[in-house]
């Protein structure tokens, strides 16, 4: 995979903490113009579990989108080669909509701790603050909540209200809380989403040459302003477990937390 830019360990650690990865303006302007038309016309559905090749014919817009080097490199790093297309959808937020989507996770609750799907979200136009860009909640992806049961939460400190240039692609962990915001502008806002399922074990698929960079631990230790004090510690504990699964390094820890509570010495007193 030398010809696509894989994520670094520092970037992967950022994804494990945040549950998302944002690539600003990685789709060129001519493709974005084409993309708006493609999305206006709709993208026919494909069967669950289709290969990328079957879902998106060679040379089609979506195929060219996911073969852009930055997109392909991130996708490979997160789910590996040959992912399945779970499903895709064109999302449109209409001008002056009265309501936002409730905060939700997609599909049903998914409690896998050693595997994850990613959702690619593509924005073909500039998204301004009043266009209702996607709301997402950094660090919410490891929470065990089902679909829109989180709909009661309107605002959380540190939430991300997406404002981005045309051609931006965002990858979300399947568990991340998100929703389309109310569009208070005069412009129809488009987004195209594809959910990918891995077909290989998600272990060291990225560029691991910086695995011991201190910024890996820094990124994995990220605190988000909406976390309650006590639960924030459990979030970091669970990130350590995910990082161990992704790297195969069962000695990795932050603040000695997993090591401490797993300590069961077997040595007998002489």
């Amino acid at each position, binding site marked *: 995979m030398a010809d696509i830019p894989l994520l670094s360990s520092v970037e992967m650690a950022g994804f494990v903490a945040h549950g998302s990865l944002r690539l600003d303006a990685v789709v060129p302007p001519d493709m974005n113009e084409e993309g708006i038309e493609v999305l206006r016309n709709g993208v026919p559905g494909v069967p669950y579990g289709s290969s990328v090749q079957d879902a998106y014919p060679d040379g089609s817009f979506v195929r060219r989108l996911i073969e852009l080097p930055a997109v392909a490199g991130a996708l490979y790093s997160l789910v590996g080669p040959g992912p399945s297309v779970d499903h895709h959808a064109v999302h449109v937020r209409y001008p002056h909509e*009265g*309501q*936002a*989507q*409730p*905060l939700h996770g997609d599909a049903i609750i998914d409690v896998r701790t050693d595997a994850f799907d990613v959702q690619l979200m593509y924005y073909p136009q500039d998204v301004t603050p009043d266009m209702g860009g996607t*709301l997402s909640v950094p660090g919410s992806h*490891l*929470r*065990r*909540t089902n679909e829109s*049961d*989180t*709909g*009661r*939460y*309107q*605002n*959380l*400190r540190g*939430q991300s*209200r997406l404002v981005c240039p045309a051609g931006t692609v965002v990858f979300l962990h399947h568990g991340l809380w998100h*929703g389309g*915001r*109310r569009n208070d502008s005069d412009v129809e806002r488009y987004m195209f989403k594809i959910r990918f399922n891995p077909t290989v074990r998600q272990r060291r698929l990225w560029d691991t040459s910086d695995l011991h960079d201190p910024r890996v631990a820094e990124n994995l230790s990220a605190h988000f*302003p*909406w*976390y*309650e*004090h*006590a*639960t924030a510690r*459990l*979030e970091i*504990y*669970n990130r350590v477990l995910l990082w161990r699964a992704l790297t195969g390094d069962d000695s990795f820890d932050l603040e000695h937390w997993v090591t401490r509570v797993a300590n069961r010495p077997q040595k007998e007193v002489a």
Partner: protein
Amino acid sequence: MSTRQQVLVLYLATSALDSETVGWSRYDGTARTSPTTGDGDEPPYKSGVHALEDGWRLFQAAQLIPPYPGHEYDVSFLKHEFFFEKLVEVDAGDGTARTESSR
């Protein structure tokens, strides 16, 4: 004139009412405002006590429930949820708010 309820939900950093706000939701029974998901970045009050000082009346706080055995490390919904209300007099005909009885 009739009375309508405005509801404020604050999610706090600990189970203490004077700990800082980490999340919030608003519902307006007068129909004069339409709060919705993702409509602001700054919480309306720094803590639950700040809401009390502004006249909101607390009517429910989340119970403290121990984790179920085997689920001590699970993370899920926000735990420290506090419900507040204000009672507002409105014209029966047009729903126009007149006074806030809790101030």
